[in-house]
């Protein structure tokens, strides 16, 4: 390294890769993240892409982004704002201007800043940076398109194919800036493109061209050093929420020694779960791509009826379609896991954006008295734990369980210390043993779970269904029996509380303000709480992963703070639920429904404002 290299040491950096939805930004971001995790930083990622596969090229609506946040300490969020923006065209600059730190560096492809592209991005002058008030930012124009062409001049590939490698130039350059080893990226490219040797070779060539460009031009490009984080010892891998969910389900089936069946219909942003499980034939996973959402859940119920762990995965609109069938599983008291990767609603809403607005749907979106267990994962990697728990509860308590994740968790990823199967709790299924004593709705005294007998088990032949029954399984319209059965189904779900760990607040165990959150906002809320505590504020965070039933000590925890603020990505659904379930407190609210995660800053502002009131 020469003397004049500017090496800046940082605790944490957020980079946003941004370009047309066909520019390969998701791949670029993923490759960079993997390399970053391997050099020992903690990371958090956030893909942000439009719902159109290829929106008109060069337009702001067609911009696809991938933000990765990494540092030398625990990283809980993908970062409120980016320190470095890699922009493949003017539209990418426009779409991301508001997501940049004040001192941010913008690396952009000069070649794409043509009159035509400026017009497509609806700039009115020929100085896009001035138009967006970005004069004070460090801007590094790099002729990415022409240098990519230059690097592949001898390749015999057509122009269109050559230009597909532009993202590798940007990746190479950023890898130099942040000192990421190229070998890891090369390995990943080889794995991804398999036998397509020409593509592998050209991508690697351009990757190196980008890296070398950074090295050669170091008088203009700064170099950053982000030391490795202090991380607990163990074997790690990067995992997205959807993959973690899929794997948690397989782990549960293995632990319970039964087979896993997924009935599902593709829907953004839940499809990855179906895909990830389809890959696992080697572990005996049966996946059934159904003709619609209803058939997805119905095949899963059929599989559970036949003795498998039946699971269905979906997003909000799909959950709406599945509601009648979920009620059948409630009535038939069969184990079933329903994963809802929430997205912006109502209706088709914002399919690729995140939101927490299906809470009420999960709780109440069915006919009749329809109690159901609801869990919500908090980070991409703990989707594994909560998928496992959802299955454990479903199997041990003979009930459907809804697991709520969201687009932010499902698509986001983070390093994950790989558990060992022997560390996970055992799962005891409720398979009936004695035919002489078996009745379809006879129950265990403690849990009220019924016994599970499925076709093929001799001597247990019986009938179940959606009609109200008495204990013997006979259809009953008796008024007193119906009330009894409604109450017992509610009580069965309420008793799941004995599987729910106590709520442990983060930060101050008592104080001025308790931040309350649930599900996928954990990273942002814990970051806000940590920063507030570090500033000397008496703040705690109570984050809920168990929605129904709530942890037993919920009210006790709430009683230790002067004020409670419920922060959620909807207009106040959990707050309304708490007002019903834990009525003695006043709940302030911080709500956001923009299809985006929280910013740590905005949470802090709300909390400080509430303290001062």
């Amino acid at each position: 390294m020469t003397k004049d290299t500017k090496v800046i040491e940082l605790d944490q950096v957020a980079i946003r890769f941004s370009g047309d939805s066909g520019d390969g930004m998701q791949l670029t971001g993923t490759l960079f993240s993997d390399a970053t995790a391997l050099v020992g930083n903690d990371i958090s990622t956030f893909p942000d892409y439009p719902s159109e596969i290829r929106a008109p090229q060069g337009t702001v609506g067609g911009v696809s982004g991938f933000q990765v946040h990494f540092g030398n300490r625990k990283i809980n969020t993908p970062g409120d704002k980016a320190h470095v923006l890699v922009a493949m065209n003017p539209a990418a600059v426009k779409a991301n201007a508001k997501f940049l730190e004040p001192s941010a560096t913008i690396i952009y492809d000069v070649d794409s800043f043509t009159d035509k592209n400026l017009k497509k991005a609806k700039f009115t002058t020929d100085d896009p940076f001035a138009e967006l008030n970005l004069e004070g930012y460090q801007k590094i124009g790099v002729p990415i398109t022409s240098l990519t062409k230059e690097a592949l001049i001898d390749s015999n590939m057509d122009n269109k194919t050559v230009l597909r490698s532009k993202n590798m130039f940007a990746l190479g350059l950023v890898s130099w800036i942040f000192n990421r080893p190229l070998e890891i990226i090369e390995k990943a490219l080889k794995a991804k493109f398999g036998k397509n040797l020409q593509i592998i070779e050209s991508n690697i060539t351009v990757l190196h061209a980008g890296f070398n460009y950074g090295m050669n031009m170091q008088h203009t490009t700064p170099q950053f050093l982000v030391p490795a984080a202090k991380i607990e010892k163990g074997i790690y891998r990067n995992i997205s929420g959807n993959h973690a969910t899929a794997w948690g389900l397989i782990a549960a089936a293995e632990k319970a020694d039964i087979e896993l069946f997924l009935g599902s219909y593709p829907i953004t942003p839940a499809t990855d779960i179906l895909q990830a499980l389809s890959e696992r034939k080697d572990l005996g996973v049966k996946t059934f791509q159904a003709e619609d959402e209803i058939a997805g859940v119905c095949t899963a119920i059929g599989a559970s009826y036949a003795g498998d762990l039946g699971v269905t995965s979906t997003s909000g609109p799909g959950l709406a379609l599945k509601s009648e069938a979920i009620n059948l599983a409630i009535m038939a008291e069969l184990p079933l896991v329903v994963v809802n990767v929430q997205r912006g609603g109502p209706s088709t809403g914002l399919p690729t954006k995140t939101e927490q607005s299906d809470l009420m749907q999960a709780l109440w979106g069915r006919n009749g008295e329809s109690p159901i267990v609801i869990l919500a994962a908090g980070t991409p990697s703990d989707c594994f734990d909560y998928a496992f728990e959802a299955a454990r509860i479903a199997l041990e308590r003979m009930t459907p369980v809804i697991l709520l994740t969201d687009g932010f968790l499902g698509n986001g990823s983070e390093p994950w210390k790989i558990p060992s199967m022997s560390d996970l709790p055992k799962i005891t299924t409720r398979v009936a043993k004695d035919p002489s004593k078996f009745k379809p709705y006879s129950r265990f005294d403690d849990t009220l779970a019924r016994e599970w007998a499925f076709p093929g088990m001799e001597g247990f032949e019986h009938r179940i269904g959606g009609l109200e029954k008495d204990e013997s399984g006979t259809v009953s319209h008796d008024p007193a029996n119906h009330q009894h059965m409604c109450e017992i189904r509610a009580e069965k779900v309420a008793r799941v509380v004995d599987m729910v760990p106590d709520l442990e607040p983060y930060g101050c165990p008592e104080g001025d303000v308790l931040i309350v959150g649930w599900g996928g906002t954990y990273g942002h809320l814990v970051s806000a709480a940590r920063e507030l505590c570090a500033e000397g504020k008496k703040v705690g965070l109570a984050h809920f992963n168990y929605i129904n039933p709530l942890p037993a000590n919920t009210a006790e925890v709430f009683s230790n703070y002067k004020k409670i603020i419920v922060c959620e990505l909807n207009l106040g659904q959990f707050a309304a639920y708490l007002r019903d379930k834990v009525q003695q407190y006043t709940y302030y609210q911080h709500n956001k429904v923009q299809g985006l995660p929280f910013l740590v800053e905005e949470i802090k502002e709300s909390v400080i404002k509430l303290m001062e009131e």
Partner: protein
Amino acid sequence: MIEYTYTAKDFKSLNEVLWCPGCGDHAIMNAIQRVMAGLGLNKADYAVISGIGCSSRFPYYMNTYGFHTIHGRGAAIASGVKSANPKLHVWQITGDGDAMAIGGNHFIHTIRRNIDINLVLFNNKIYGLTKGQYSPTTDFGSKTKTSPYGTIEEPFIPGQLVLGAKGTYYARTIDGNMKMSQEIFDNAARFKGTSVVEVLQNCVIFNVGIHEEITKGENREDKQIYLKHGEKMIFGTNKDKGLVLENGKLKVITIGQDGYTIDDVLIHDAKEESLYMHVALINMTMPEFPVAFGVIRAVETRTYETEMEVQIAEVKKTSKIKCMDDLLRSGNTWEV
């Protein structure tokens, strides 16, 4: 394989049968229970699945495993049951509303996948349980509670729908003919694939006598033909009528008249892959033709649940990942 000895009574549950007296469902259930007794398969391996409707109460009356599910979704639930455990004998009981209206999507896709279930479609051309509204198979112009001036919709011909969905098996029978029904259910049970048996069923309350045109009155033998694989397409009170193919169309002839002999009469081939003749037989209507009964199509091919089993077994054989711990440690990992 163990051969189990049963009587039809072994398949009857203790639940009181609540269908109306005289309802065609009683006869259909009796026929199915007799067939099940005769098959000698373990009773515990039967799963009888239904949706909603009069016919869908069927599982409650069976002394097997039974699951009375939700409207229209029986086929999807049955698909899950059979895929989860291919060893089971899965029967789906459904009606013209349950299968053709609310459950139309699951009906066609189950058939397309060719999952090995026995699907019994009770067709009485009316909604019975909701008391007399028209169904997707109600004849055009019929007056019902929701069509007081006559329906203005074309009905489905179930057999056409089955074949259009790549059906491998379609048979038609009628509730009153126990002997024929038993033969057909027995054949359907032994067929590997989605076997659809349409049963023309009489609703004594809301559509009484809907199939009487075929079954009652003089010369009823002239109004129906019982097709059997490999046999001549002969019918009639005197067994002297036959079906021939002329100019690409079916035609009814009398043997010994107009120069036609027995040699001109077609032989039924249920195993023919081409849909041509099967569709023509399904489409026959009175008075020009007799109504076709019997196993019209039975073409065995690969089934979904077997393909699933085979694929899982093959991948298991070659994959290095044998358990969850292997998967967790596969691919890109690093040690801290």
